[in-house]
């Protein structure tokens, strides 16, 4: 968690929120879409399955209904009631052939009579295997089997083969047969009722084909009673079922209440003909649904059997979903029979799943494309925020210069920028009145600001402008203020640049000190450099003003190092950070002494002994200012031995300084004449030298009035 110990960056935050929201949105929209589509597809699938089953039922009707009405009509026709003979064709033969040719679903039509006589016409065209078995001649379309008289011991069965127009192609010799129509199920069934009736699936007696018979009894008026029958083979329905399978993995089948498969597109799977062990008759053995060992069919079938089925139900087998439909076949066509269909749901949902996947991929791509845009936007917003943070950081450090340069189209950020700019302007104005550097230093020192102070070594500086009073009299207030401000500004820069703390401005004077509030090593050195800087600044300003023809301001500077109390004084509303004590007064007085020696910068011995040899100084006096007990040695700071041109002491001055070097020693040894001599030589070198003039005058006085014997060269000042 160190990574984000400062918090998560704005752009990462924004990006994650965007990703989260957008992917949740995309996901839920895709999911909703998929579900909505899947549910309508499922409904469509249910409707479709229903229609398929309905179609099958209709197909049943189309196959059976004509047969039912046919039997209804045929049983009223007189010609069928006539008993067949082996000698000539049955009077209804032509009519029966007509029935076969107009009803392709019918395999055979026949009449059985109460006497045991029987006549049957087969459509052999669609049954080549049966035709071959009968050894029918080439071109045979119809076969007519006639059984006349009921004595099984006599030959009584005859096959006649006809072409498609009903012309005879051949006749088989008479055969014996034990076939008795009266024992056949279709006969027995029909005798139970007067209406046409469809049988269960069974094996036809003559052709040994599995199928269904519709049979109806007829009354023979004055002839013999009998039963009229129509056979339809299973093959006919199986072919139809094959057509109805609308996909490879769909399954369509019929089953009955006993769980037997009564129809399947592949009849070989659903039924076989076996020989009854007891009777030797062929019997139809139907496979049970479970014999197919198909888990999908089993699931559908057992759910139905055990009452866990609803039409259109979706069930799962091996993790794959299937949809199914079970519809009953009307009892009239097949008793206790159901049509069942199953299809894997994915056949309906496949395109929808694909669509869903496609839109998901699209969403992911769109998201991936949008991400850089979001990243750019968030980085931009983040950058403006960072800039503003940096700006406030600068404000904290009182760097109030420069404009707030942040551009953003986000109104809140704009407002924030404007606020910060306004704050900066306000602080800037305010900062004009407060010692910015001091406050900055105070902030940097990390100390809480409060009343109170401490005692420490300070180097103090006082500056003053000579001839200010006269200048103030001739200038307008505005000009004066402006000029003073410019002057103070330049000097202030020189002081601050050298680590000084401005204590206060007193009119044209500046009070500054070093080594507070922040501790500063070699503070006398820094102060001296500042003093030189001030001198340079002042000179440059004067050069400038001279050019403009304006009055110049000559700056005098005094430096002194000593112990002083420094700290905040005043009230909590208005505080001053200032230095106090004798040292401060002394520094102020020393500055004033510049006039006496004609010097620009005076430093005391406490300062002089701390600074390095890079500074060029000369001793000018030893004084005892008023109120001070220990005499103070004063030095004039002339400049730097090396360094910037403006601060360096010019070469020609070194001769003057060389000349001056012995002066102070001679003066203290009361060798007045020698001092006067040197000073006069100095005057020749530097005409009007205040210092030389001062010492000539002093020595001439001492010549007349020699100082007391305890005099050690100290000049005592009686006034302030």
């Amino acid at each position, binding site marked *: 968690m160190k990574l984000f110990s400062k918090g998560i960056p704005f752009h990462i935050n924004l990006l994650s929120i965007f990703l989260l929201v957008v992917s949740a949105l995309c996901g839920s929209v895709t999911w909703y879409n998929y579900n909505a589509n899947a549910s309508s597809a499922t409904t469509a699938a249910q409707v479709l399955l229903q229609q398929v089953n309905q179609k099958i039922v209709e197909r049943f009707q189309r196959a059976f209904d004509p047969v039912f009405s046919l039997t209804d009509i045929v049983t009223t026709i007189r010609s069928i009631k006539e008993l067949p003979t082996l000698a000539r064709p049955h009077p209804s033969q032509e009519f029966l052939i007509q029935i076969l040719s107009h009803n392709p679903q019918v395999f055979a039509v026949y009449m059985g009579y109460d006497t045991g006589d029987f006549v049957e016409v087969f459509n052999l065209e669609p049954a080549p295997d049966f035709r071959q078995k009968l050894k029918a001649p080439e071109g045979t379309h119809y076969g007519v089997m006639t059984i006349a008289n009921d004595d099984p011991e006599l030959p009584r069965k005859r096959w006649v083969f006809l072409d498609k127009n009903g012309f005879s192609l051949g006749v088989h010799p008479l055969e014996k047969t034990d076939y008795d129509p009266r024992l056949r199920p279709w006969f027995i069934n029909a005798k139970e009722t007067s209406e046409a009736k469809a049988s269960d699936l069974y094996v036809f007696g003559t052709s040994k084909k599995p199928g269904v018979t519709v049979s109806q009894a007829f009354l023979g008026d004055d002839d013999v009673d009998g039963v009229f029958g129509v056979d339809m083979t299973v093959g006919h329905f199986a072919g139809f079922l094959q057509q109805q399978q609308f996909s490879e993995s769909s399954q369509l089948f019929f089953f009955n*209440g*006993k*769980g*037997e498969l009564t129809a399947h597109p592949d009849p070989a799977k659903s039924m076989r003909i076996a020989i009854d*062990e*007891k*009777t030797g008759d062929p019997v139809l053995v139907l496979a*049970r*649904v*479970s*014999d197919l*060992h198909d888990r999908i069919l*089993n*699931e559908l*079938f*057992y*759910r*139905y*059997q*055990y009452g*866990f089925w609803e039409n259109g139900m979706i069930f799962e087998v091996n993790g794959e979903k299937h949809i199914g439909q079970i519809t009953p076949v009307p009892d009239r066509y097949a008793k206790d029979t159901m049509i069942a269909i199953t299809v894997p749901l994915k056949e309906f949902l496949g395109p929808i799943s694909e669509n869903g996947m496609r839109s998901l991929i699209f969403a992911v791509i769109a998201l991936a494309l949008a991400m850089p845009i979001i990243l750019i936007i968030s980085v931009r917003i983040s950058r403006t925020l960072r800039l503003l943070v940096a700006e406030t950081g600068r404000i904290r450090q009182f760097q109030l210069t420069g404009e707030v340069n942040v551009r953003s189209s986000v109104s809140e950020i704009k407002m924030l920028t404007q606020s910060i700019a306004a704050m900066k302007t306000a602080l800037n104005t305010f900062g004009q009145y407060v010692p910015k550097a001091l406050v900055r230093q105070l902030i940097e020192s990390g100390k809480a600001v409060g009343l109170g102070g401490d005692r420490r070594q300070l180097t103090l500086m006082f500056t003053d402008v000579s001839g200010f009073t006269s200048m103030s009299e001739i200038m307008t207030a505005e000009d004066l203020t402006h000029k003073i401000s410019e002057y103070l500004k330049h000097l202030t820069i020189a002081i601050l640049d050298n680590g000084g703390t401005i204590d206060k401005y007193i009119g044209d004077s500046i009070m500054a000190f070093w080594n507070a509030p922040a501790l500063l090593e070699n503070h006398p050195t820094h102060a001296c450099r500042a003093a030189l800087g001030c001198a340079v600044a002042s000179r440059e300003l004067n050069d400038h003003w001279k050019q403009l023809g304006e009055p110049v301001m000559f700056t005098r500077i005094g430096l002194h190092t000593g112990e002083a109390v420094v700290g905040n004084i005043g009230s909590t509303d208005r505080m001053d950070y200032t230095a106090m004590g004798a040292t401060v007064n002394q520094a102020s007085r020393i500055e004033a002494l510049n006039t006496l020696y004609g010097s620009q910068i005076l430093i005391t011995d406490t300062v002089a002994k701390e600074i390095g040899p890079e500074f060029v100084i000369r001793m000018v006096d030893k004084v005892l200012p008023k109120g001070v007990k220990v005499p103070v040695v004063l030095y004039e700071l002339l400049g730097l031995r090396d360094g910037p041109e403006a601060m360096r002491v010019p070469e020609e001055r070194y001769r003057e300084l060389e000349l001056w070097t012995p002066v102070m020693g001679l003066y203290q040894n009361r060798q007045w004449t020698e001092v006067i001599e040197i000073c006069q030589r100095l005057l020749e070198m530097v005409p009007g030298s205040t210092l030389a003039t001062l010492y000539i005058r002093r020595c001439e006085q001492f010549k007349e009035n020699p100082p007391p014997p305890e005099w050690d060269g100290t000049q005592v000042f009686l006034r302030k």
Partner: protein
Amino acid sequence: MDTRHPTSQWIWTPRFLIILLLLLFAKRPVLGAEPLVIVTPFPKVTYEPFQRAFEKSHPEIKLEIIRLKTDAAIKAIQKGVAEGKSPDLFWASAKDAFEILSDDDQLVPYHSAVPGVAQQIGGQPIHDTDHHFTGFALSSYGIMWNGYFTRLHQLPDPEEWEDLTHPAYFGQLSMCTPALSGTTHMTVESILQNYGWDEGWRLLKALGGNVREFARNSGDVPDAVTAGTAGAGVVIDFYALTNKASGHDVAYTPPKRPSLVPANIALIKNGPNSKAAKQFIDFLLTPEGQKILLLPEINRLPVNPTVYAQAPRGFPNPFTNKSLLAAQPFDVELSKKRYAVINQLFDATLVKGLPELKSATKAIHLASKTIEEKTTWKTPWFTLPWYLPNVPNLAWAREKLAEARKRLGTAPITLEESTGNLAEIFSEVSNDKLSAEQKGKQAQIRARWQADTRQTAKEAEKLAQLATQLLNNPNSVPNEQTPAKGAP
């Protein structure tokens, strides 16, 4: 009332006689040698592997198999012996059939000397003590169920007969009747012996109440379970195991208190090929013959314990299986004594009284479901048996339900009656040997049994309905009903 056995109606049709004659005589002369004639109710899948193996090892002997249902077989043998046209062997499951023939002196004792054949299991003899018939395979009766049924109903696999009395099995249970199937008779008899007479009848009636309709043939029961027309059935093990072996999602378990029954073979009196017949019996008992029992389409337990070493994985071995070894000794004498009474009683009470029995059972299931609903806190996620003390009439309803169950489960007659003079009245099964007086007496008794059971079932139904009503409609309690002691 026509009391003849349903099968006996077609047994004597001319067509049947023709076939019987054809089978017995027409096909007999094969290469001069007389074929060995075996009468058996076993299906072709069962006898054919034995036939093939035997004819291979004894090429000089040809087999002639006559397939007849057990009942018809007994009659055909009796007739054949009487007419001097005895078949050679009788080969069947039901021990009782052999007992009948043995009592009738139709069988010839033969003690096979084949080594390694077990003589008894769990204290029960496998073969007839007088060697009139020989056990060649063992079977257990048990529960067969359809895996889809238990899964769809979220029921545990049944383990006990009692499990089949669960309401989910209502109308989903298939079983045959003792009169129609020898094996079912054995199942019923062993339930009555294992559970005791009263408790046994309570269980039989509870099972019967869940039956949709009684199967006409014990072989129809496993078919119904496989075809999904029943969820579970009372079957003999090999039927279930055979269905399972052919890949159907069905399972079988013997009940906790099982009965092992031997399938037998016996020499018929005056059989012309007694030497070949003995060879066939010996062949059945040799490891070679016993091994055939392990075939998935036969699935019967060999009586030669060494053969189990060759059995497929998971094949039960009764000689080591503790639960099968714990089979109760079967009281053959008791069974024989009340054989007909049990058949008649079962027919009169459970088969004829089925509509009333089902109706009462349905009412009992509904009452118990209502009690459960009222006292259980059901949520779509979990169910808590949460007793609600303020269900009005709860104790009362429970009492009525218990009464209903007790009433419905009452044994139709007492144990003493079953072995007393009733046994004598019904002892002679064969219809044509009965006098008109006996027939009348039997009909009278059956009518009384039927009326009694109908009455008890109706009373039980009313009690169960009252229990439901007490809970669903606490304020509309009929006036004549007074709260029982302790009820609110």
